């Protein structure tokens, strides 16, 4: 689908836990193919101090109902304002932006790793991978049980593994402490990872050790989101690349991470 600016109607706004909200947005124009990992840049016009748009991964797409959903974690004024958008109001959304994850050409055994709000793009990814008949394994981590939102949704598309730092659910520890990393990592042909940078670096290190294909979805502060301001660069082996257009998904071999 070509990127465009659309006024989307908020048709549902669900509070998942303390600071996570699920917004469902209805598009005026027919949605076309959106790739897992692509994102939307949303205007926040109900706040005095927010000036720029805020980027959010496309969490799910419903081509029948012509809606996308966005998973929002409140961290500042922009996310707070957006997560309180009343139903039936409109948001200006630029989408779809960026490149998605590289999908397997034929059936593979894949692992999705997500932590914190990094899980957002993984639901759509899991759904597409499952549709394409891959073996989908999904490892989700959080600080505590309450952070593991929408497990039932993920379970529709693959096998679920979980960790919590306090041990309240699943294995205790960080995602990289999960037993899957010590025993079974080679069985996966691809790892897709999304979450806080230290977590993605830890996963990338494990993947690199076992030479498993690994893609990560980066977050950077953005001004435009479509490749014109050059503010969102990350260091790659080919120099500065824009996270918004060359990413947000990068193969770990492209990045200059010390791993």
């Amino acid at each position, binding site marked *: 689908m070509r*990127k465009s600016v659309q006024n989307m109607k908020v048709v549902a706004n669900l509070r998942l836990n303390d600071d996570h909200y699920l917004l469902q947005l209805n598009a005026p124009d027919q949605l076309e193919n959106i790739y897992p990992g692509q994102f939307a840049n949303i205007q926040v016009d109900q706040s005095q101090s927010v000036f*720029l748009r805020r980027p959010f991964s496309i969490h799910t797409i419903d081509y029948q109902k012509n809606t996308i959903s966005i998973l929002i974690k409140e961290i500042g004024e922009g996310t707070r304002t957006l997560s309180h958008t009343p139903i039936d109001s409109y948001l200006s959304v630029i989408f779809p932006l960026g490149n998605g994850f590289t999908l397997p050409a034929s059936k593979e055994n894949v692992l999705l790793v997500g932590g914190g709000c990094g899980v957002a793009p993984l639901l759509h990814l899991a759904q597409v991978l499952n549709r394409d008949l891959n073996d989908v394994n999904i490892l989700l981590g959080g600080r505590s049980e309450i952070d593991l939102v929408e497990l039932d949704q993920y379970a529709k598309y693959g096998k679920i593994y979980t960790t919590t730092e306090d041990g309240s659910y699943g294995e205790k520890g960080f995602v990289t402490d999960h037993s899957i990393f010590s025993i079974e990592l080679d069985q996966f042909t691809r790892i897709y990872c999304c979450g806080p940078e230290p977590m993605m670096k830890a996963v990338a290190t494990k993947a690199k050790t076992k030479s498993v294909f690994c893609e990560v979805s980066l977050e*950077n502060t953005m001004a435009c989101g479509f490749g014109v*301001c050059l503010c969102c660069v990350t*260091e790659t082996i080919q120099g500065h690349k824009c996270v918004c257009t060359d990413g947000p998904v990068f193969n770990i071999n492209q990045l200059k991470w010390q791993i």
Partner: protein
Amino acid sequence: MADLNTIIHNIKLKNPVLTASGTFGYGIEFDDFFDVNLLGGFIVKGTTIHPRQGNPYPRMAETYSGMLNAVGLQNGGAHYFASDIYPKLIKYETNVLVNVSGSTVEEYIACAEIINELDRIAGIELNISCPNVKEGGMAFGTSCSSVAAVVSAVRKIYKKTMIVKLSPNVTDIAEIARAAEGAGADSLSLINTLLGMAINAETRKPVLSTITGGLSGPAVKPIALRMVWQVAQAVKIPIVGLGGIMNATDAIEFFLAGASAIQVGTANFIDPLATVKIIDGIDQYLNRHKISSINDLIGCLHM
């Protein structure tokens, strides 16, 4: 439909709306959003003779009604522009200008010479006001003698329309404007960004890798408008006004202050369709006020 035609030296504009360098990429990035030919023209990103990696991340900080950037003229260099970008731009029927930057007078000359060879480039905008590079850039734009030096040097070798882009980080903008006019500028554009700074109170570090950066967006509009008005009293060459223009009303204010054309910068990030809305809005304004041509608005501030 009012008459929106206006002229900047030798460049005929079908409407007075251009885009600001560094905020519109090479135009191509906007093809998905709208027909770029609707614009009076656009100014591609800052180009230097040598390729530049730009500054390290982070390069951006959001501020109240604005943003700071410290991109630092990341670009592939003038040769790359000529060989790889220019061929993609000749499809456009509107005016394309190149923003030219350098660290030394020689670099400005070398870059302008390459652009001079490109038929379909209507003119250059000489950027003597970039606050985000260690050498040259803004330093050229903050004293009359260095402004005169770089402008007259490039004037000798560049034959088409040369717009000189002024820095707002000066005590007396009128004096700088006269120096640029005297050295052969065909037109002046202003303002470039204001030098600013952002600090993250939690980490106790500067937000930008370069500590300071350039402030743009509606926060700076009152300063830009004042400078355009001051420069309009000081020089005879046409002025291109910019700085915080978000909508048609903002644009009208710049015309009244004396700008013959305007540029839209940061607004493109918030609304990629800002320029087309502004063109429409100017037309509506002129019709509503029964003004037949945009030229009857330029500099027509009632005192």
